[in-house]
């Protein structure tokens, strides 16, 4: 009998024009702990979703086999019943229910299987107590999950996964919410589970954890598995290089417009909030493109929201814009000053999906660059035409619904909205996420052109290649602190990757 428990053979997954996974082969043995590595967008989540039944592979591709039986799961529950448990980054707990209720959610024991199904609280508690003792936790079973700390919730999530006695446990960034001590306990726990015969797929960004917890590693890049090997065959540096890869964008020569003597247009001193930001200070100069590199959850988005005044949390620290201290910041007052933001979540926060491209572009200009009290069609149309042309937005007309455009064209329109309103400083939060390569290059060129024309820019990206290509300086952010500032010339993708990784060791 073979020892292979999970086999993924020739599996592909396509979303519209994007191939998220291409002919992936993946094998897992009983009791093996496999680290799954890759940059954001390399296909890790997609692979996890396929294995856990949240999504189905392309119909013309291969299949997923558990104990050599081909499995096609239509729901996550089906995969769960087959013994595959996932602990996800976004929580699957119900905060109004108790710890015990959450651990056995979906399979609450009944006092007698017939009749009206009275909850067997005793049995429910014993299931919960048993799984919690597996992970050495002693959280009161009747506590409401909504009242627990993030770390405790993470552990309940793991307990919930273990409650079904899984054969395969998938942990997706399980340590991102934990402190050092809790991380150590978790790593020990994973080793114990593996010793008892459970196979584990361990997705993490934290290089330091890999040799301590994993036997083998697989590296995903651009939807392909480029390496599968024993962990002991690699040093941390080698792994980092494998994950980052060579720069696959053609490095176009970009004219740099910035020098450090340029006047400071925006400066931030000791920016703090309660959880994510721990004292951020930096300066943005005129005509500068300032990159921010950092992993998900490092506080990137929070910095921009804190500056722009849309943060829900209380913000401490000082923001000086055009040499004037700005105490009460709201999105309206920032736009009046000439500072605009394009949000990371384009679909929910960026576009007005039911309005046309034209109206999406002109909406912030009304009352700003166009000061007329009444709508002036002609004036607006001219402005819109100018930006559709300048940004090369592929649309049949101004009135075409923005939601019918490609992601890249939507993003260009969202940036166009800020430009049409005459913004002097742009805060761009992941402007190239999920858009095609040619739109990306257009956006890079646009940012550089704007810098030349006198618009400064803060540019957040998960892709080190593009930061390296576009930015005059890059701040490396980790756990809410700036750990390094790298000048544009030195900011190679490898250097940026190494620096971000150092932050999470």
């Amino acid at each position: 009998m073979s020892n292979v428990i999970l086999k993924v053979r020739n599996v592909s997954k396509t979303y519209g024009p994007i191939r998220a996974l291409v002919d992936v082969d993946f094998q897992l043995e009983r009791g093996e702990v496999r680290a799954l590595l890759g940059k954001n967008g390399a296909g890790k989540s997609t692979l996890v979703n396929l294995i856990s039944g949240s999504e189905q592979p392309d119909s013309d591709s291969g299949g997923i086999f558990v104990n050599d039986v081909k499995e096609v799961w239509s729901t996550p529950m089906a995969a769960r019943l087959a013994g595959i448990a996932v602990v996800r980054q976004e929580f699957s707990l119900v905060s109004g229910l108790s710890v015990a209720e959450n651990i056995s959610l979906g399979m609450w024991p009944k006092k007698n299987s017939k009749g009206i199904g009275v909850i067997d609280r005793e049995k429910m508690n014993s299931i919960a107590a048993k799984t919690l003792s597996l992970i050495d936790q002693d959280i009161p079973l009747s506590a409401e999950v909504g009242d627990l700390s993030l770390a405790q919730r993470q552990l309940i999530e793991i307990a919930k996964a273990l409650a079904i006695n899984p054969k395969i446990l998938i942990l997706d960034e399980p340590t991102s919410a934990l402190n050092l001590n809790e991380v150590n306990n978790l790593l020990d726990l994973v080793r114990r589970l593996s010793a008892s015969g459970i196979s584990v797929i361990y997705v993490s960004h934290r290089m330091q954890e890999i040799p301590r917890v994993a036997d083998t590693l697989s590296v995903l890049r651009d939807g392909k598995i480029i390496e599968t090997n024993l962990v002991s065959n690699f040093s941390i540096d080698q792994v980092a290089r494998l994950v980052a890869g060579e720069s696959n964008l053609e490095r176009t020569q970009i004219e740099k417009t910035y020098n450090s003597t340029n006047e400071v247009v925006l400066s931030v001193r000791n920016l703090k909030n309660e959880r994510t930001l721990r004292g951020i200070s930096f300066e943005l100069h005129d005509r500068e493109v300032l990159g921010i590199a950092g992993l998900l959850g490092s506080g990137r988005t929070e910095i921009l929201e804190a500056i722009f005044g849309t943060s829900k949390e209380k913000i401490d620290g000082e923001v000086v814009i055009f040499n004037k201290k700005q105490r009460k910041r709201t999105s309206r007052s920032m736009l009046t000053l000439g500072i605009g933001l394009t949000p990371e979540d384009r679909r929910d926060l960026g576009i007005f999906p039911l309005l046309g491209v034209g109206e999406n572009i002109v909406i912030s200009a009304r009352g700003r660059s166009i000061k007329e009290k009444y709508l002036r069609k002609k004036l607006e149309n001219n402005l819109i035409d100018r930006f559709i042309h300048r940004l090369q937005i592929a649309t049949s007309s101004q009135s075409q619904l923005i939601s019918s455009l490609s992601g890249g064209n939507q993003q260009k329109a969202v940036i166009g909205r800020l430009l049409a309103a005459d913004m002097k400083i742009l805060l761009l939060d992941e402007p190239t996420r999920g858009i095609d390569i040619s739109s990306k290059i257009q956006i890079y060129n646009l940012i550089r052109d704007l810098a030349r024309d006198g618009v400064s820019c803060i540019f957040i990206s998960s892709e080190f290649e593009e930061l390296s290509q576009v930015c005059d300086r890059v701040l490396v952010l980790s756990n809410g602190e700036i750990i390094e500032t790298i000048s544009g010339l030195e900011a190679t993708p490898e250097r940026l990757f190494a620096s971000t990784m150092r932050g999470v060791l």
Partner: protein
Amino acid sequence: MPYRNDPKVQLSSSFKIMKEWDGLGLFGSLILLFIILSVTAPNFLSSENLLNVLQQAAFFGIIAFAMTLVIVAGEIDVSVGSSVALSSALLGVLVVNLHFPFWLGCIGVMVYSTTVGAFAGWMRARFDVPSFISTLALYLSLRGVAKLITNTFAIPLNATQFFYWKSGKLFGFPVAAIYMVLAFFAISAFSTKTVFGRTIFAVGGNAKAAVISGINVKSVRIFVFALTGAMAGITGLLQSAQLSSGNPSIGVGLEFDAISAVIIGGTSLMGGKGSVFGTLLGVLLIAVLSNGMVLLGVNPYAQDVVRGGIVLGAVLISVLRRNRMKRKVS
């Protein structure tokens, strides 16, 4: 909270105090109101009046208990008042015009009311029609049907067909109040003791997590509306008994009282949290207040203003509490 279903709660003391305050505050308000009315309102404390309060409470309380589960599931049902009217009208038509035996007429009403409720739930579960919209449509059309089939006239029913109901009392207690007590215990126990009942809280708290965990979200949604429909049917029968007629004009504004009682009782409009016991306190508060205002001769329009204000206040308190808790946790 005195009505917490699990006595073994071990929370940090600050949470405990805050949570207890909620239930206690409501309980305290009820007692306070009771004392004030005992002193100021003539006849308030007479047993006849108190039994009358209970009967009035039953006419929206029975529905409010089921409505609690609808709101816990993250939904709303604004059609209940019209459904009560159609239940009453239908009873009249079936028994008087179509000569159904009385018991069969009652069964017919229950089948109708449960089915219509289930239909609203099914629209939500199957097509994702927001429950506010589908029940708003029913609010209008059910009342329309009730008036159509009766020609807007109440159909007199033979009071003796209502057994105990002709006197309206059983062992001295209003029959409607007895139904309310039974409905309270049944729905309360169902929601805290049974797997299916507790599942409603999971669906309302995080429907995505419920799906991932293999919970049948659709059946939960259909069920809570069907239950509310059934309770509207019972209420329609009880009101017909009291009026000795099948009346298409009753139940106006009943949805407001039922939903108010649920909100005053501390159930979260966001879903996932709430209790039938809290709703009982809310029902009593509204019934006592309405009765007191009538006894004190408050202008009926002013009464509406007061009731509206109380609901707004209750929502405000619960929102403020939630925000404070959130800040505390983070």
